[in-house]
């Protein structure tokens, strides 16, 4: 259903009911022409959270909008327009990338993990990923908006460096802005996860 989002303009031109507003508005609105979505479509095949998706999309559709609006995975957030804030961070072929700075078409053929699919990559049985658990235990977030991106940046760090120092953690998340926490509990959360993952040696 979500794949057909741009094709599914299933409405008919309607007249707006003006009974309540007729004193105020001289004219009436009818719907404009339909979107010519079929003209410039691009086909993409992506594996997201271990599920295959085949979609026909606009070339200019950003990866973050594809994930959120087309696939309905709204856990990945948008915090800026200049690729600075990191709230849109996902894992693409294992690397942390800012999905607002990629076109969905550029992700053709790749494997993506969003926050919704992170836990499954670790235990496969529905428990939380240690980084998620760390964020809960150590009060690593307040409003939660930067959190999915921050968790994935933390998970990506621990995948390449299993015993990061505090300054290494701070450097690794310096591409993710947070306005609520002052970063200290985020560092504690990632450190908690590093220790937990080292213990279970996975």
């Amino acid at each position, binding site marked *: 259903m979500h794949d057909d989002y*741009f094709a599914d303009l299933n*409405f008919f031109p309607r007249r*707006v*009911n003006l009974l*309540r*507003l007729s004193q*105020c508005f001289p004219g009436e*609105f009818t719907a*404009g*022409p*339909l*979107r010519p979505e079929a003209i410039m479509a691009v086909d993409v095949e992506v594996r997201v959270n271990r599920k295959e998706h085949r979609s026909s999309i*606009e070339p200019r*559709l950003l990866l973050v909008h594809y994930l*959120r*609006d087309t696939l*309905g*995975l*709204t*856990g990945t*957030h*948008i*915090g*800026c*327009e*200049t690729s*600075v*804030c990191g709230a849109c961070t996902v894992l693409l072929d294992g690397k942390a990338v800012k999905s607002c700075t990629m076109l969905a078409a550029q992700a053709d053929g790749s494997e993506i993990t*969003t*926050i*919704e699919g992170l*836990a499954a990559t670790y235990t496969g049985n529905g428990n*939380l990923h240690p980084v*998620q658990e760390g*964020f*809960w*235990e150590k*009060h690593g*977030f*307040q*409003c*939660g*908006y*930067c959190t999915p991106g921050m*968790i994935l940046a933390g998970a990506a760090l621990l995948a390449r460096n299993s015993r990061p120092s505090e*300054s290494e953690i*701070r*450097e690794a*998340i*310096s591409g993710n*802005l*947070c*306005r*609520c*926490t*002052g*970063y*200290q*509990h*985020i560092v504690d959360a990632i450190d908690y996860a590093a220790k937990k993952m080292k213990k279970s040696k996975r």
Partner: protein
Amino acid sequence: MAPASPYIGRPMTRKEDPRLIQGLSHYVDDIQLPGTHFMAVVRSPYAHARIGSIDTSKAKSAPGAVAVVTGPELHGVIGVIPCAAQIPDMKPAFREVLATDKVRFVGEPVAVVVASDRYAAGDAVDLVEVEYEPLPVVVDPEKAIAKGAPRLYDQFEDNVSYRWELEGGDVAGAFKAAEKIVSQRMVNQRLIPVPMEPRGVVAEYIPGENQLNIWTSTQIPHLARTQIAAMLNFPEDGVRVIAPEVGGGFGAKLNVYGEEALTAHLAIRLERPVKWIEGRREHFQCTIHGRDEINYMDVAAKSDGTVLGIRCRVIADLGAYYQLLTPMIPTLTGLMICGSYKIPAVRMEIIGALTNKMATDAYRGAGRPEATYFIERAMDLVAHDLKKDVVEVRRINFPKPKDFPYAVPTGLTYDSANYQKSLAVVLKMSGYTKLRAEQAALRRKGRYIGIGLSTYVEICAMGPSSAMPAGGWESATVRIEPTGKVNILTGSSMHGQGQETTHFFEPANFTFPFGAHVCVVEVDPETGDVKLEKYFAVDDCGNAINPLLIDGQVHGGIVQSVGQALFEEAVYDSEGQLITGEFTDYAIPRAHDIPRIRTNRTVTPSPVNPMGVKGVGEAGTIGATPALVNAVVDALAPFGVRHVDLPIKREKIWRLIHEASKSAKPPEKAAAKKSAKAPPKAASRKSSKAKARRK
């Protein structure tokens, strides 16, 4: 006395967290109603201009477009943006949701388009053609209130919004008796709150029931409901405002915005859900800004450091129009200007200035960070000018615990405090005496460490209380279900603080949290670079309910203060263009900018409520900026620097050092008498810093 409970005082993880860490929560843009159409806003690129014609024909026929609306057709249909502040004789600088004859700041909404998806809406915005006749711009508030300034409003004789005065005690007598008068012009710069989630609204109209449902990223759903209903002249009982998960607010979302009324209006007209999501650049331009006060301050003191009285003339830059509380915020600076000191006489004059900028309003601290900055810098200046110690000058002027409840000449009564204790705890915790010894030793080696102090108090619990004449009563319903489970319905609206976890109640009066912070910085005189080395915070929020959450609030507030002190500034150029309008230009602190913050608490319960609590959400943002600035000025003392204006940027420091070096004997020469090695040490420090960066 706080009721006995096994939970109070224990660090507890939050109930609301599981959905947030799994990406399962819903912020406003995550709400996907079938048939939703997207609104986008056409905004003025000019800071001051008359609007000529608006041609909407191309936009109306753009692919996917269903509506284009301009200002004139909404005049009298949607009410002005509400302002709940009432300052005597303030000018009625209210704004229509869409401009009609004039625009007065860059980003002011001029038209809206609605289309079938967000990309089509963005395309249609570009097709609206607006004719503008640019007018002269004024962005400097002191120039704006001077004679001959371009007038923002033809119907007002000048750009002065209001003049507000407060006087308590014998100010004239204090200045007559002064043995030293310490004066300084200080700037508390314009900031942009920048929660990580920009604003957004989804509005849905159900015609058969005449029901309007509005999801909005707001801190004030109840107030928003009342105001939006009023703006639309819609029955209040037919409006439901829902705050979904809100991605931060910090005061920026403690407001009612035009886009909320516009989406609702369009949902009614089009009879389909309408969504508007703010872009980040829109947010920088068009969501409320904070602070922006200039203070000409005089302190009357005795030669032993006792403060006899203070006089302030504040120019507050309000922007072009009022939002919900715009004119009121600077008056909170007036009320708290005495800080944590027993100052018998105070005079405060505030002039609200209208300029071609976005409105200022409440940003975390709302008037109190400004007050605390002014008084804490003033105490350091008194110490400097009288050649006294910064700790002793504070101690001499503190009221004693037995003086509380303490009546301040501004008209407030502080509830309870022990400023001496929090100061003593932070001095011990930071190893203050040792820090001063290290500082002296490092100065002899040509390194400039600064130690800064802030002993702050702030006013809190400003919700329902008998001290406040206006409404806003909190209420709660406790319902016991047939299963025996208890449901508690309260009006509190959370945006990250953890209210699903904490208790709530109504205070009888204001409360006054307080604390003492010490911060250590190192300044590189060759680059002006400021490195934050250590931070120690002792905060007293009365009885501490959940220490884990309290620490989170303190850390977050302190880092926002670091932003104010060292990184952030909303800058408008002479044409009124906001040149710090993206994260690329407006720098908020990142993880690698901050050292580990050491926190501690004293507990001085408030007598004005049964829990004995005072509040802590804004303390860090109020207390920390002066500690940071005091530390930098302290680091630069050997260069004869007495004051640095906010924000402390590298170029400012470099210039101050080099100007001081021109006029006075540079400290290196004095140090060279003791150590011939001074210059090479500076070079080796630079290369070791470069090595550290390469790691």
